[in-house]
């Protein structure tokens, strides 16, 4: 698994992650975009491992990127760090300050609203809670469809011709969204209501930086059944 690098930074790169985590996925996509060779350590069964606690004593969470002996924590932080450190690959954040501010805003929105409502549906204890969380999620999709149209300006991704910060932030949630769609039988991304997102999702999945690391949906479904002991997954 460990391949020493040929990138423009000489120090060893290690990523502590867990295969089901959309946050870990973000960091792997970013590293792939920049062709950074790294060692991946699966911590899914052992989130209290010495490594995790050592490198992230504040939150005890993955992903953790270790570059040389320096730990970098939190997925969006790591993506920005990768973008700023390995300059030879395509830029992940746009160069214009206003476009960068827009990209940062939407990734925070995605975490605080989309991810929270996905989780909200998964942990809902009754029909009422589920309906409320699903309504919120549908609102998020509508807003992101508008954002996609504005940011892509007719091109394939939020970032334009290539994957960018918002693509990575939102694309990493496609797996959990598909799992929810399977159980709720509701299509959150649909060719009629969110045509832009619908076709974007296919392009995202097919991208060379994404395809090798996107978790298998069936495996995610089994994982969800085990993790969430709520009615929706029975």
């Amino acid at each position, binding site marked *: 698994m460990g391949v020493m690098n040929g990138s423009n930074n000489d120090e060893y790169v290690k990523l502590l992650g867990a295969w089901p985590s959309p946050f870990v996925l973000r960091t792997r996509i970013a590293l792939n975009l920049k062709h950074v060779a790294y060692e991946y350590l699966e911590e899914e069964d052992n989130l209290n491992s010495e490594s995790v606690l050592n490198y992230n004593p*504040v939150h005890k969470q993955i992903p953790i990127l270790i570059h040389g002996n320096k730990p970098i924590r939190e997925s969006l932080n790591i993506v*920005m760090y990768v973008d700023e450190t390995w300059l030879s690959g395509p830029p992940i954040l746009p160069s214009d300050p206003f476009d960068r*501010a827009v990209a940062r805003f939407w990734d925070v929105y995605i975490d605080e609203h989309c991810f929270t409502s996905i989780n909200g549906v998964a942990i809902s204890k009754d029909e009422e809670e589920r309906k409320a969380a699903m309504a919120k999620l549908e609102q998020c999709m509508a807003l992101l469809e508008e954002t996609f149209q504005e940011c892509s300006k007719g091109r394939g991704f939020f970032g334009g011709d290539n994957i960018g910060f918002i693509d990575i932030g939102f694309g990493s949630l496609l797996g959990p969204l598909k799992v929810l769609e399977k159980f709720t039988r509701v299509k959150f991304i649909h060719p009629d209501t969110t045509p832009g997102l619908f076709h974007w999702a296919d392009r995202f999945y097919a991208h060379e930086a994404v395809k090798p690391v996107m978790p298998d949906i069936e495996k995610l479904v089994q994982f969800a059944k085990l993790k969430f002991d709520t009615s929706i997954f029975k």
Partner: protein
Amino acid sequence: MGDKEEVKLLGVWYSPYAIRPKIALRLKSVDYDYVEEDLFGSKSELLLKSNPVHKKVPVLLHNVKPIIESLNIVEYIDETWNSSGPSILPSDPHDRAIARFWSAFVDNKWFPALRAAAITKSEDAKAKGIEEVEGGLLRLDEAFVAISKGRSFFCGDVIGFMDICLGSFLVLLKAREKLKGEKLLDESKIPSLCKWADEFLSDDIVKNVVPEIDRVAKFLGELEAIAQSASRS
């Protein structure tokens, strides 16, 4: 013929979040118009149009384009006026990641704990909340010592991103101390952070931007009275 830059900031005087862009703009010597919003009355058309998703302050309008969320605005200011004044974010990617990590800690964990402790009616929950806030301050004190390496501010001898992020809450902490006698900035427990707090509040730019402690204390008292009478009626 020069292009006149139009820079407008929408905020409210009591918000720690609105203080942040004010400090950043002054660090970069950028002239701006300030618009005081009335969040208890009705929000202005401009605010609703500029921030339709969240309808919150602060909002920076740079030549009509809106930038929202306080730390986002600070980064934008740093990048846009990058040849003027000191760098607000450090230049090294790892130092930047550290600054972003701790500022996310302040905004997503530490301050929400303080806000929850302030609002809750349960004495138990309040005590637990304050404990979490104090624990957070201990962590921030340790982080300050490790990152500053003996200098006055987090990343050097001049105010930067982390200072702006945490420093924007200092007047609120001191106002709570005045109102409630709650000493969160305790020199015996967090000596380095307290020293940093004094340096921050006596900085020339900060002094002219933060609201007065007495005014904030009075405002907090009024808010509390409204909340209590609402719960009784």
